[in-house]
């Protein structure tokens, strides 16, 4: 028996094959490098090598004023820049103990929800592409384009928008903003049906995603995985409901949850989240309150010494800002809790025992953005 085993080792090459995926690999969504230990095509372990995009955002923050730093956060999760900005602005506002006016908060909510849709669309397109469906990517990009056009009309930028200012908004909603959002939302209902037709019932899609990358609720919490990953595991928890910020307490929406916590559930959860975001937008444009858009904050921000932690439900999960002030115009320390970074840690747990082909499915379903992982 012993001899058998040893012979097999040498003859059949039972030693593990280490496959180096990335950093230039088409489906690691940026410059992620994953070292896969393979037994045949089965994954026995992974090691993520990250940091290729590390820019030291937290260090930069310590050398900029509060306002100067705001555009930098857009460069973390660059496909959801508006959400990043919302989190940062609200955190600093909390540190200053001011609150943005209601009108500003409502417009922030609309833009952030549009951004959530855009982020999920990008996720859906690339995820489907990873699994081999080419076409959804282009459909998703088509819709995302509409959202980016709205951003462009609103603040002149499409990707790294810097849409919000500490204390409120710099720009008033342009003429026809409501109409644009409404047209998009009306259209989007039909469009989302196209993705459903292409993917939801497709047996290959189900075969590729069901029971792949399962992460149950307990593991999610232990690993800190948040956002759609957590909800797909059946935890009905969303910071927008649990600790409402911006103007979320004014709107009705559902928290979609899954049961298995597999890739398919995460897909369903995100699809439903897009529909819910659309509903929030529709509710919000119905009645945007009149009033100022900028709260009373000074030109020079000198928050009193102390610290604050504020987190929001970004498209990818809990996005938290921990800011320490020493009473000067520059933050003493800004810590960003990046959802992608922490979700990525679940990769190893999710992928063990699956096949190489599932690695891309699982990386896709984690919905990571390397700019945020590496900061």
């Amino acid at each position: 028996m012993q001899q058998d085993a040893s012979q097999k080792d040498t003859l059949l090459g039972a030693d593990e094959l280490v496959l180096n995926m990335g950093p230039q690999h088409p489906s690691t969504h940026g410059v992620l490098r994953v070292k896969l230990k393979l037994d045949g095509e089965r994954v026995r372990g992974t090691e993520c090598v990250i940091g290729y995009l590390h820019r030291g955002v937290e260090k930069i923050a310590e050398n900029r004023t509060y306002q100067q730093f705001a555009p930098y956060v857009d460069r973390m999760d660059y496909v959801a820049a508006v959400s990043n900005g919302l989190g940062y602005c609200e955190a600093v506002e909390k540190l200053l103990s001011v609150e943005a006016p209601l009108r500003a908060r409502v417009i922030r909510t609309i833009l952030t929800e549009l951004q959530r849709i855009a982020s999920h669309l990008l996720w859906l397109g690339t995820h489907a592409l990873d699994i081999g469906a080419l076409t959804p990517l282009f459909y998703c990009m088509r819709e995302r384009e509409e959202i980016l056009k709205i951003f462009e009309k609103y603040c002149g930028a499409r990707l790294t928008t810097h849409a919000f200012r500490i204390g409120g908004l710099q720009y008033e909603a342009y003429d026809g903003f409501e109409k644009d959002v409404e047209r998009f939302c009306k259209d989007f209902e039909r469009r989302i049906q196209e993705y459903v037709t292409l993917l939801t019932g497709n047996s290959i899609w189900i075969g590729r995603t069901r029971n792949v990358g399962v992460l149950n609720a307990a593991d999610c919490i232990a690993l800190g995985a948040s956002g759609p990953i957590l909800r797909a595991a059946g935890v009905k928890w969303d910071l927008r409901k649990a600790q409402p910020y911006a103007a979320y307490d004014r709107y009705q929406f559902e928290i979609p949850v899954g049961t298995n916590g597999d890739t398919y559930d995460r897909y369903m959860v995100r699809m439903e989240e897009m529909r819910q975001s659309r509903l929030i937008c529709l509710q919000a444009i119905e009645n945007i309150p009149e009033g100022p858009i900028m709260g009373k904050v000074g030109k020079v921000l000198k928050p009193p010494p102390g610290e604050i932690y504020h987190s929001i439900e970004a498209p990818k999960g809990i996005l938290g800002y921990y800011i320490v002030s020493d009473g000067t115009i520059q933050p003493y320390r800004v810590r960003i809790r990046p959802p992608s970074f922490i979700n990525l840690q679940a990769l190893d747990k999710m992928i063990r025992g699956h096949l190489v082909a599932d690695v891309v499915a699982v990386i896709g379903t984690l919905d990571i953005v390397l700019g945020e992982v590496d900061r």
Partner: protein
Amino acid sequence: MADEPKPSQEPESTPPEPKGASPASPPKNDATPAAPPAAKPVAAAPKFPLPVQMPLDNDLVRRYREHFGAAILDALEDRKQPYLVIDSARLSDIARYSRDEEKFDLLEDFTAVDWPRREKRFDLIAILYSFPHNTRLRLKIPVAANEQPGTLSELWPTANWLEREIFDLFGIEFAGHPGLKRILLPDGWQGHPLRKDYDILQQDTAWVRENLGIDSGQ
């Protein structure tokens, strides 16, 4: 354990860099319970008549004190967010108690702050969230530069990478961590960038030259 009286007392007492020369408001002395309203907006903008940190003494804190006594160095509230300053030696006990008894089941974030002039140079900040109670609690753990606090990664696997990041950027080593190595910066890098004495333009020139073949990454 509290080897120095109030390391916790807060940042302001030791403003680090030249700039923050004026130690702002002496923190906790006037314990006006009227503080909370001050957290409300408008008038507050440029000037802060009321202090934003106050000692905290509620059921939760009492329970912690009951269990850990002197290990809870301080309990404060900053802008209505509670935090406990705890002794690093009891970190894992307190963390376990928080997770299992107080149901702070999610380690939302784990990070550090550098106070170079303080005797215990670093603050570890653990942000805990409780799903059942929908509340957050911050644990602030002062550690000295040469100290090795126990790892939290056995309690929360999520602390694995977070501790690696702290090690990478601050140089704090965690005892018992599985595979503590740099995560964001390359393995051979010298220095820990988020320390206050690491200038923003500073880099490991030798590493850059050797591995990237360029004189400077700037």
